[in-house]
């Protein structure tokens, strides 16, 4: 129940912060969120990691959109610095809010109002980590066998063929494994 309440609070805050347009208020919210991050029962390194991740996940889109918009404003005599502060602070607030809530609530428990959805998320996310590791091995193997920085079309075709066929077969096996595991644990007889 605790996680469901936290999810509700999180979603409400998300909409509320999205509706704030004053950069002073948004900077205030950002300060509160930063304080919350430092109050979280985490190691210092993890706290810094949350702040860094939030910053970098908003940095590129922010630079692409708000920096040119503000710069053009300077040339045409329109002060757009308020907008620059507002949009970037709001984006940072919302991203940091997400990371804070991901630390304090269990998203799988929060979403278990639907047994199927919850199970689907648990299974897919746990296997995604395994698949990602195998994919990294594939990429590393391809890189180490490619001469120079330029990739030949024919080499890429071979690599893609092996990769796609391997993961297609693996996903079929995974499907069967999950089905048997669910059946053996009595999932279909509840």
């Amino acid at each position, binding site marked *: 129940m605790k996680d469901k309440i936290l999810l509700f609070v999180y979603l409400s805050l998300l909409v509320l912060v999205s509706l704030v347009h004053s950069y002073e208020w948004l900077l205030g919210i950002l300060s509160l969120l930063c304080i919350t991050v430092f109050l979280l029962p985490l190691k210092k390194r993890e706290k810094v990691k949350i702040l860094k991740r939030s910053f970098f996940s908003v940095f590129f889109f922010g630079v692409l959109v708000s920096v040119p918009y503000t710069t053009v404003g300077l040339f045409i005599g329109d002060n757009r610095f308020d907008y620059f502060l507002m949009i970037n602070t709001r984006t940072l607030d919302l991203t940091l809010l997400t990371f804070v809530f991901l630390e304090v609530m269990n998203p799988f428990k929060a979403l278990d109002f639907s047994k199927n959805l919850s199970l689907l998320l648990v299974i897919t996310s746990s296997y995604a980590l395994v698949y990602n590791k195998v994919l990294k091995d594939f990429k590393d193997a391809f890189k180490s066998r490619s001469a120079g920085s330029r990739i030949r079309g024919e080499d890429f075709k071979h690599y893609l063929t092996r990769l796609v066929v391997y993961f297609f077969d693996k996903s079929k096996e995974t*499907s069967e494994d999950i089905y048997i595991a669910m059946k053996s644990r009595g999932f279909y007889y509840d």
Partner: protein
Amino acid sequence: MHIPDGFIAPQVYVPAYFLDGLFLIYAFRRFKKAMEERMIPYIASLSLFSFILMSIAVPLPGGTSVHGLGIASLSLLLGPWIAFICVSLILFLEAVIFGEGGITTFPINSIAMGFLGSFSAFYAYTMLKKFLSDKVSLFLAGFFSTLVSAFFMALLLGIHPYIFKDASGKPLYFPYGFSIVMPALLLPHLVVSTGEGLLTYLVVRLLRGRISHEG
């Protein structure tokens, strides 16, 4: 193509959540009927395959490379509804579990990439196959699916400065109108679309035989 939180107004993303939710519920019900107890393993494993397709970087002439989406491939191999579910599930996981991609922008990404991307690929291929070769139709289906998704994103972003502005006319969310956002988003996506077209051609040709052979 991921838009971070903060650039889309709640007046847009809240209704988008409802619409996307309705599409997803309908798609899940279709599969529950067809697959019964195999639904969860089937969707989970195909979503994992979709996750892999999304991670493939396709090299293009000139030394550049772009990330494919794999949506068109899945749509042409297994149907647009399953492609939509799988892509949405991966986007949801990225946003909710891994904290990447934006929570408020999830339904927009899901509708643009998952729904429009998979259906446009499916219908583009069905139509083009009547006039063009299979190779060209596959490439163009992948190409158009990405371009349609990008066009929808550009449309949604571009409408913001006209609707959501303060009393002095300053934007409250995304600042650029159609005249800027359309070329800014569509021109780079021509390159991404080319990568997706190539990926679709290669993946579908490779797996089509296996799927039809194994049923």
